[in-house]
């Protein structure tokens, strides 16, 4: 039995900047998503395993486990391997994000239209619950 069914409307955000968080919460909630925040990479990994969110958005510069390491760990774990990840960072690290297995890289600052387009596209393309059930039990 799973801790939780993959929640198609929850987005997990690993971000420490309060102003960025506020903007993300506002735009994501306005689009009908529920948002959960994590302060560091370890906490994000733990929440992702429990929640299996529709999407993870992470900054690279977060404590304990950086965003790129978080991305790799999510990919290695069958429970979260299929959760799309947006690396959303102040760093220009598109190539490194790609290597870490991110689904998309966006450079800060946040621009609503670009950010939300990436979120919607990745959530829409997310594997179905049944497919995930199948993969995780294999």
């Amino acid at each position: 039995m799973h801790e939780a069914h993959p929640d198609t409307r929850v987005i997990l955000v690993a971000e420490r900047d309060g102003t960025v968080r506020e903007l993300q919460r506002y735009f994501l909630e306005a689009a009908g998503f529920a948002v959960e925040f994590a302060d560091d990479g370890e906490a994000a990994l733990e929440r992702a395993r429990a929640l299996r969110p529709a999407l993870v958005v992470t900054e690279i510069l977060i404590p304990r486990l950086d965003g790129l390491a978080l991305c790799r760990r999510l990919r290695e774990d069958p429970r979260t391997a299929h959760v799309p990840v947006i690396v959303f960072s102040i760093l220009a690290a598109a190539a490194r994000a790609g290597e870490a297995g991110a689904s998309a890289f966006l450079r800060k600052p946040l621009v609503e239209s670009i950010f939300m387009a990436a979120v919607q596209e990745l959530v829409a393309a997310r594997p179905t619950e049944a497919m995930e059930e199948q993969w995780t039990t294999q």
Partner: protein
Amino acid sequence: MDHAVIPDRRAAFKDAPEDLVERMSVGNAEADYILGGGFPENSINIIMGHPGSGKTIFAEQLIFHNASDQRPILYFTTLSEPLAKVVRYLQGFRFFDEMKLGTQVIYEDVGPQLAKDGAPALIPLLQNAIRTLSPKIIVIDSFKAVHDLAPSVAERRRMVYEMTALLTAYGTTAFLLGEYTEEDILLYPEFAVADGIVELSRRRLGNRDERYFRVYKLRGSRYLEGAHAFRITDSGLDIYPRLVSPRMPEGYEPASERISTGVQGLDEMLDGGLWRGTTTLLAGPSGAGKTTIGLQFALEGARQGEPSLYMNFQENPTQLMRTIRGLGVDLEQAQAQGLDLVYASPVELQIDSIIVDMFRRIQQRGVRRLVIDALGDLASAATDPQRLHDYLYALVQHFAVSTITSVLNFETAGNTISGNGLGMQNPMSYLSDNVLLLTVEGKERTRRMLRVLKTRGSAHDTRVREVEISAAGLCVLE
């Protein structure tokens, strides 16, 4: 199973060059040039200057240039200026586009709300604007005025901190306008967080004003330092970037071709004419024949099919045409062959605008010969000797690099090259490749004499030679 179901966006990972800073054009080619391509996008910039210095016009030119259907531009006025007043003055400018107003460019008067709730009310106003409008550019005019509504320094700092956090988190380019002075840079916290600082200043010079555009700071960018003159026209700011010395291109070699001066006997004195690309200082008192030699040099160029520019600050166009016709020259034909006569009154102009206009003509027409008549007039159009010296030095370098052969007329007070009453000691002679001195002598009969004081790379005639001006022009007597 790999995670191929997730759309492969790896192409997107290669798209973004990692250290490229996108630039926002200010809608003014010269300002973009000074700013190294424009303001960095998603930056916070301060446009400072006294009232009437042109801040608002600069900002308005910028926003109308950048207005598009995609994301609107927000202009907060904090001085309680009714929109009607803003628009009334805006309509006079050519960049104004009524169709963009209210949709692509949104003016909002936040003065009353700030007056009522204080400076901190700016933050929720900005938050709300970002959430509802997603503005690409935010202008706050005047930001300094917002400070006056903050009761304490601590509150000001908090407000600036919160605003910076918001404008940094969200992808927008901000312009904070204010009547700041240079001393304010150390006092106001916004200067510490600004990515770019531009000052517009105005200086009274006699009965005219000189305006200058200066970049104080532009993070992560190269920019053209110093004061750049500008005028306000119905197109907005007309900026004249300060002339700087060009870098000598690699493999630069002085031209190895001699060209005729068009003055009979002078080419022989110069060991076969002037080397192409050299600068010649032609000095002498009034009436010695400088203008005549300058004209002959330019006309000779036109005769040979070389575009020739004669920059004249001395005689008005009618006088000059008369002088040319007096030389027996068909002016229309000479102009068709490439002679460009330009008259500018130095009283009306700044040296910067004269030089920029000259370079535009040089580029447009591919000028090969140039005469400036006379340098002293340029000196009177320059506000300080150092600026003039820098200009002339850069000018000569530009001519050398582009192999433009130039003659710079210089009026002396008497028969010696030093001293002209304009404070130009040792004028230009060390910058010029060649120096010719005309003198006027004689008691019973005026005798004009010509002497080559210096040439670069020529075995010139060292004698003092008499010259004569006739209907055929000036010639060196045997």
